[in-house]
């Protein structure tokens, strides 16, 4: 394995690992705060227990996210020293603010976890909320830095002397892609976490359908994940139009769009052949790509044939990842639709085994979409590390033997992933003995009346 490939894989693996913990760290505190809010308002012990049980999950995910994030901040230099030397002073601004956000998140989490009965209840509740808010702020800032790599601004570059001048870190932070990318990422985090949490509780409900703890848990999680899933296509559309203008090569790779044409069709499925520039087994909807990219069915969409050969991103990986992202996202949006519909008009469906299975099977789909989406934006930017300015191969560390650190990272993170899953299993196993309200069951024949009132409360 070459050092460049090893470095790219190590970065991808580290980010792919961290992103899951980052998503949970952003969205789960809000679930926890909603449950806590309801406890304060109603005095219902189920919500208190739910908030506590979730906060332990947050603690485990936060700790793992914190160390994997620390690792990433070093890896930027360990793997891409040339990039960091030039880019650090330009795009470092959001990272320096993120330090503050992360700090506040850590402090607020300490207060929330250990503050039960020690600090006034509203300060306690606020600390939980602050964990979420600062988590989201961190997410926005980190994505803004990544967006700069896609749409570098805030400096002048002289290719002849390879110098960066007139640096403006604020302009770099507010680069043209920061908003679309951050919006898409935050919604993805809420969708993925909401469905992952709801899925776990749905799975447990299959065995104990009348358990109130899991019922309330699934509803809060589906409410949050569902709303985000509904908003995501709007954000996706904004992103697509943005990418079409700024990074036509990325859009062409996402769509395996080899030939520049008017009335360009939207490709669904298909196996692209990068050698011949053909796509097999796909379905093409005429004109739709032109419309989605430029808001006009006949508008020309730039194909890979207009991109110099040495500036084309890998097509197959980008295209497959894009398909997986859109497919998983669409599926979750339909589940969310079914949930909201059932909650309003058919409350009984919510306790039905088929619905619970549907939610349970959705558990990994949001995270899968997040990973796939991240792959689209990173692989789709290749061969550039700073779009149009610096190539990834120019940025890589001169140290040989990077494959060994890559293998190490794979082994360590795989071990951690197994351990975290095992710990989550143990959390679930012991719910009944740690929380009295876990034993509360509701009379299923009353289900309809109960849920009706809750619908009103929730909406």
């Amino acid at each position, binding site marked *: 394995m070459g050092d460049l490939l090893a470095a790219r894989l190590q970065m991808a693996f580290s980010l792919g690992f961290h992103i899951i913990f980052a998503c949970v760290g952003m969205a789960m505190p809000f679930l926890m705060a909603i449950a806590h809010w309801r406890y304060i308002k109603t005095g219902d012990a189920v919500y208190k227990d739910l908030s506590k049980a979730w906060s332990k999950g947050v603690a485990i995910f936060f*700790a793992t996210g914190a160390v994997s994030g620390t690792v990433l901040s070093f890896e930027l230099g360990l793997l891409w020293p040339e990039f960091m030397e030039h880019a650090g002073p330009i795009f470092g601004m959001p990272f320096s603010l993120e330090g503050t956000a992360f700090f506040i998140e850590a402090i607020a989490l300490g207060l929330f976890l250990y503050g039960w009965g020690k600090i006034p209840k509203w300060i306690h509740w606020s600390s939980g909320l602050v964990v979420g808010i600062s988590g989201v702020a961190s997410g926005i800032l980190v994505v803004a830095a990544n967006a700069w790599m896609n749409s570098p601004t805030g400096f002048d570059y002289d290719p002849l002397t390879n110098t960066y001048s007139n*640096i403006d870190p604020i302009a770099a932070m507010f680069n043209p892609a920061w908003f679309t990318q951050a919006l898409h990422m935050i919604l993805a985090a809420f969708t993925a976490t909401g469905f992952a949490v709801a899925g776990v509780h749905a799975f447990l409900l299959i065995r104990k359908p009348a358990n109130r703890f899991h019922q309330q848990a699934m509803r809060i999680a589906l409410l949050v994940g569902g709303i985000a899933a509904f908003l995501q296509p709007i954000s996706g559309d904004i992103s697509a139009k943005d990418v079409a203008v700024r990074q036509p090569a990325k859009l062409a790779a996402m769509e395996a769009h080899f030939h520049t044409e008017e009335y360009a069709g939207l490709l669904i499925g298909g196996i692209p052949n990068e050698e011949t520039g053909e796509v097999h087994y796909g379905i093409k909807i005429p004109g739709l790509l032109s419309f989605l990219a430029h808001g006009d069915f006949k508008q020309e969409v730039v194909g890979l044939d207009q991109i110099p050969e040495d500036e084309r991103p890998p097509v197959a990986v980008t295209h497959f990842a894009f398909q997986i992202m859109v497919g998983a996202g669409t599926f979750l949006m339909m589940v969310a639709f079914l949930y909201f519909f059932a909650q309003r008009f058919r409350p009984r469906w919510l306790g039905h085994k088929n619905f619970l299975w549907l939610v349970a099977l959705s558990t990994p789909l949001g995270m899968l979409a997040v990973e796939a989406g991240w792959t689209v934006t990173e692989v789709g930017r290749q061969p550039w590390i700073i779009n149009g300015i610096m190539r990834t191969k120019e940025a890589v560390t001169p140290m040989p033997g990077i494959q060994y650190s890559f293998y190490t990272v794979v082994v360590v993170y795989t071990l951690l992933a197994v351990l975290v899953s095992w710990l989550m299993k143990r959390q679930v196993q012991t719910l009944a003995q740690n929380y009295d309200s876990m034993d509360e069951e509701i009379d299923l024949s009353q289900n309809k009346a109960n849920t009706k009132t809750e619908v009103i409360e929730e909406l």
Partner: protein
Amino acid sequence: MFMYIVVLSFLLLSLLLYALLGGADFGAGVIQLLSTTPKAEKVIGRAIGPIWEANHMWLVIAVVISFMGFPAIFKVVSTALHIPVFILLLGIIFRGTAYAFKHYDAIKDEKSQLMYHRVFVWGSLVSTLFIGITFGAMSLGKIDPNAADFYTGYIAPWFNFFSISVGFLTTALFAFLAAVYLIGENEDPEVKDFFIAKAWKWLLASVAIGIVVFVAAYVDGLPLFNELISSPLSMLAIGFAAGSLPLMFSTIRKGKVVLARLMAGAQTVLILGAWLLLHYPHAIMLSNGGSLDLYDSRAPDATLAVLGWALLLGSLFILPALGYLYVVFKGHGPEESI
């Protein structure tokens, strides 16, 4: 120039706070390396539980200030010292997760608790050792950015007597700090005596390894002693650190909690301060006798200006919140970890 000083001050402040706070967390793992008791383990868990995440943010802040404010230095450290930094990261991953898993594992069975404990303790040792090795290597002067072969480029800079002895000095100092902090975390005389004994041993170890560092410097061709003599401020700092040792010994023996903490903190500040003063304005010594200097490696003015403001504004948020956290939890730790 003003913002350069602000940014540099924050870099030094975050390194210092990382040593004083994060260092003590690492040290709490290290002191359990040779022996521990269930009671002591409990006290340690309670003492660092609510604040340990916050303590480790100082490292992230220091890294961000380095790559944004002093990019050339960040580049050289992450290239030439790639291997020790990578091992340090492995230590941080293992100890951080093991610590969290130990406390939030829903089932506290002996077997898995012991596993977490071992990983935490050994991870702490690896982390402190390689923090020290990295810093030692930065000042030794064996870093060669144009090295032709792997050994000279990536091994020789840090795999030497001096850097490794600085690694052990860091370990001993952090362990000493932790033991002193922990004396006052509990009223139980048995636990108090346990930490007093640990503080003694690690203080002695720090002094002994401190002497070894000077020998190692001589062996590896670093004129540390001569440099020290020619820098009056560093001499003063080291003199204070050494001169306060008898007082330190007696305060620990008498179990004077607050004074011992202050003195142990001051010791660390003095040693770190002496080292920084000795090297200022050099950040990294190179094998050709040259150096990378802080001022010359600084980012453009526009970057330093916004970074300085970000840090100043950030501390307006961080410091009060951190203060509140300590007020709530220090002195009367939570009865039980949830």
